[in-house]
């Protein structure tokens, strides 16, 4: 990502919008016994298109804003979302992400990772006497809902970030696997080594 004021404004807008929409709207919008969680989606989306460092920063800021807005322990969400953003960013750094359906598994992994890790951190921090197994069901439902909106949401994130993404990153995302030369009998893998 090109470090320009525009990039920070766009990224910041995305994060703020996601957090406010989440705590004011989507959190109260129950579908199938769960609610869509935009937080891991926005972090994963930004990391997916902007890389690991930007993803980690976005995760930290999103977590911090979320903790500030809802009044929970500062740092818990930041810690988890930083890891999520970094992880998704590293995945996009190392892999070809040109496949159109890749946001779906990325969103699923990010959501599961975020919810699971946050549950673990909260469990360690809180003094809850017992934890219901229903949180597992909740994780599954939220993941399914997030997967359902992953493609349009990642498309939106990409549209917002596109002007500020570095050219090399855009090139990297456009890059396709090079066509391998065929062998002497027209089959790949039978090339004559020189």
């Amino acid at each position, binding site marked *: 990502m090109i470090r320009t004021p525009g990039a920070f404004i766009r990224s910041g807008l995305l994060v703020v919008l996601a957090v*406010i*929409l989440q*705590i*004011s*709207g989507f959190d*109260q*919008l*129950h*579908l*199938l016994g769960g609610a869509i969680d935009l937080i891991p989606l926005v972090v994963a989306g930004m990391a997916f298109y902007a890389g*690991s*460092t930007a993803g*980690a*920063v976005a*995760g*930290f800021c999103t*977590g*911090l*804003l979320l*903790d*500030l*807005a809802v*009044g929970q*322990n*500062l*740092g*818990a969400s*930041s*810690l988890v979302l*930083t*890891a999520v953003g*970094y992880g998704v960013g590293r995945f996009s*750094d190392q892999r070809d992400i040109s496949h159109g359906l890749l946001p779906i598994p990325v969103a699923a992994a990010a959501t599961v990772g975020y919810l699971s890790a946050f549950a673990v951190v909260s469990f360690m*921090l809180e003094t809850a006497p017992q934890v219901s197994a229903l949180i597992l069901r909740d994780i599954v439902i939220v993941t399914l809902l997030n997967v359902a909106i992953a493609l349009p949401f990642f498309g939106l994130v990409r549209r917002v970030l596109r002007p500020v993404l570095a050219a090399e990153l855009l090139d990297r995302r456009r890059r396709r696997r090079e066509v391998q030369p065929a062998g002497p009998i027209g089959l790949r893998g039978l090339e004559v080594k020189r």
Partner: protein
Amino acid sequence: MYDKQVVRRRRAALGVLVGLSIVLLTASFGNGGGVLHGFQSAAQTILSPIEQGASRAFKPFRDLANWVGDTVSAKGKVDGMKKDLAATRQQLAKSQAAVRENQQLQGLMNLHRRADFPQGTGAIAARVIARSPTVWYSTIQIDVGRGDGVRVDDPVVTGDGLVGKVTDETGGTATVTLITDSSSSVSAEIVPEGSNGVVQPAVGDPNDMQLNFVQKGRDITVGQTLITSGFASGRLESLFPRGIPIGRVRKVDANELELYQRVHIQPFADFRRMDVVQVLRHRGRTPVPNPGTAAPGSGGP
């Protein structure tokens, strides 16, 4: 792919962010009412108007989604409530059956207290355990039998009045042929007028019985009561003792061409809803022990 500087910068950024998170976490735990709390409160104050606006703007969508969710949830609740309703209906049916049974038992008690009820008879209470499904053969099965002292031709009554007689018996059960059966005939008397006749059924309509062979010229009016006449002529004796109420005069057919007049009777007993009956027997009759049955009267309520 990346030079070492980029890698180092990336790792450094990650380390700084994770470290900051842990510091924040530790600080927010160790300093509940300190600077961080004030910072958090300030952030919430700033964000709250935005959140309120967003919440209002989002309300139609939220309502729509919640409506969909509620509809889906309501469908699930409907299924659960249907089950509850079915269970409640069963309970209601049981309660109503118990109330009806109670009324019938109360009626049986009152029947015996009537002054005109045949004296010298004992009663065996019985529960109806089966009914004939056809209108042509009006019979019921009761849960008392020979072992309880029940004999063929014993009259059977409910709290309302006569319903039939025992036509078959086993050790523990008996078959009662109702007076609505096509083969049934009961000698009866209209009180207080005193006209005698024979009560016969109109097959298919248990609420319309006929008192036949009533002499013309008798002043029979609608509403008069019909009881068993219990005649005894030499060795001939009616199966039904005198005084068991049968029904009420509903209509009188005065056909000029016939020798007798026909009286339509509305029976007192509700033949469609009998749960408990009593078998009348002469006092002093001892039950015949039957190894296959329980103690006398144990089948009744």
